[in-house]
């Protein structure tokens, strides 16, 4: 078989073509509410279909996490850089101003630090460094910056309370902040109204200094979660703890409560009135989409509601933790759920075949299905034909009313 030597010019042309194709491929998308620039696509309007998210080309394959807030987002790269975009009215983008920015912008102020964890609340942001420092910016009205006052900050500042401690993980809700330390302790600050930062003095509406959340049994906390007025933690055995505003029923809980002890949970995601839990490849919902309150969730698969936590007579707390019911989410045959995310009132998942599904509230196009309809069961999102064919994996992230999907490089996870 003849194997011609490709002339140098032709090789260069082929390389250029490949490069051009690479540039033309889309590897990050967003859709949903966009009036504050939170889609990062250069515009300020809602989109009902996936739009290219305008990360700088050098970030390709390096975006390892995206935190979605009320109307802003924070992207973290695998080498510790941070980009923010969307609503900046309270300084939550960390650029030293209060502008809304419709595309990812490098957060220069913390460029000399290697950031390992980020989180976004309604209007506040946090960045943890590889050496365990915590930087915060944005709205501090409820003490959610942990600064000891209730002032906003438009540049990241280091939270003094943690200078001698090692911060590992962050999870921010609407008006509160949770911090997991390397020594396994969980701290909370910000709004205390619904028990979301643990047990507080009566009538104490908020704390602007971090305080230890006690009540965990002897366990190793692996991850923490927050959204709305809810808080949660997952330990290494897969035991889930929830506290704060009740997901089901009326009774808030100001202490971490172990729930669903019969499940080994690998991932969870919190909305404002619902939560998702992934256990042994099965996906469940706790609570319900609030806007469908009068329209109870009826799942086409008619999977029976499972009561995994039988009531006991000595439980004096509420049904949200001890009697909660989980509803199984119908998923796709032959595909495994590998990643889940929740916005305020919508949900998203990615399968092992890198297929993205969304369901829940759709009024702002946050389901990415081309319309504004609500969906009770997961629907496949079409990311278009500019997807790199080599795309092995992607992750999905949600802000309040928007969704972000990012392809990550083969080496990253």
């Amino acid at each position: 078989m003849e194997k011609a030597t490709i002339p140098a010019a032709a090789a260069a042309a082929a390389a250029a073509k490949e490069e051009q194709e690479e540039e033309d491929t889309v590897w990050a998308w967003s859709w949903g509410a966009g009036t504050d620039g939170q889609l990062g696509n250069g515009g300020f309007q809602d989109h009902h279909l996936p739009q290219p998210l305008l990360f700088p080309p050098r970030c390709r394959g390096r975006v390892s996490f995206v935190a979605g807030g009320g109307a802003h987002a924070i992207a973290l790269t695998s080498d510790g850089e941070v980009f923010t975009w969307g609503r900046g009215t309270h300084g939550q983008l960390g650029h030293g101003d209060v502008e809304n920015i419709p595309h990812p912008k490098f957060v220069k102020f913390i460029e000399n630090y290697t950031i390992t964890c980020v989180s976004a609340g309604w209007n506040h942001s946090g960045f943890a460094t590889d050496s365990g420092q915590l930087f915060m910016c944005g709205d501090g009205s409820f003490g959610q910056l942990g600064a000891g006052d209730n002032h906003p900050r438009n540049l990241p500042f280091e939270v003094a309370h943690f200078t001698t401690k090692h911060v590992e993980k962050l999870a921010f809700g609407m008006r509160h902040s949770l911090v997991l330390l390397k020594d396994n302790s969980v701290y909370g600050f910000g709004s205390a109204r619904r028990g979301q930062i643990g047990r507080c003095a009566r009538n104490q509406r908020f704390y602007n200094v971090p305080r230890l959340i006690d009540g965990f049994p002897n366990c190793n906390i692996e991850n923490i979660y927050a959204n709305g007025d809810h808080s949660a933690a997952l330990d290494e055995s897969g035991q889930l703890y929830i506290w704060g505003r009740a997901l089901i029923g009326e009774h808030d809980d100001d202490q971490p409560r172990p729930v669903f002890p019969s499940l080994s949970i690998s991932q969870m995601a919190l909305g404002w009135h619902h939560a998702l839990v992934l256990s042994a490849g099965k996906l469940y919902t706790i609570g319900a989409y609030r806007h469908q309150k009068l329209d109870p969730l009826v799942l086409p698969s008619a999977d029976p509601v499972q009561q995994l936590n039988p009531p006991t007579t000595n439980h004096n707390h509420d049904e949200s933790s001890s009697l909660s019911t989980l509803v199984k989410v119908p998923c796709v045959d032959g595909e495994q759920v590998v990643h889940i995310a929740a916005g305020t009132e919508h949900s998203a998942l990615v399968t092992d075949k890198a297929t993205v599904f969304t369901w829940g509230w759709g009024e702002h196009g946050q389901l990415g299905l081309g319309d504004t309809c609500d969906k009770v069961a997961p629907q496949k999102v079409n990311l278009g034909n500019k997807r790199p064919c080599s795309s092995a994996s992607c992750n999905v992230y949600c802000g309040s009313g928007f969704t972000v999907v990012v392809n990550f490089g083969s080496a990253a996870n």
Partner: protein
Amino acid sequence: MSAYDEVEIEDMEWNAELGAYTYPCPCGDLFQITLADLRLGEEIARCPSCSLFLTVVYNAEDFADAKEPQKPSPRPVAVA
């Protein structure tokens, strides 16, 4: 359609620019109810961006002739 949620006026924030008490809406915008609405006994806070609305819980007498709240001026702390 029912209210998205029920919120006490104490949990809403006064926004002088909008002349309204506000609370986060799940769409990313803010539920709003003006002082004039409250004086009239209105209980619904609406979001200008979507179809959702809140029920606001408050004592009507407190707002019968209420004036605009003084914003607790969050000014940067002077550094010594």
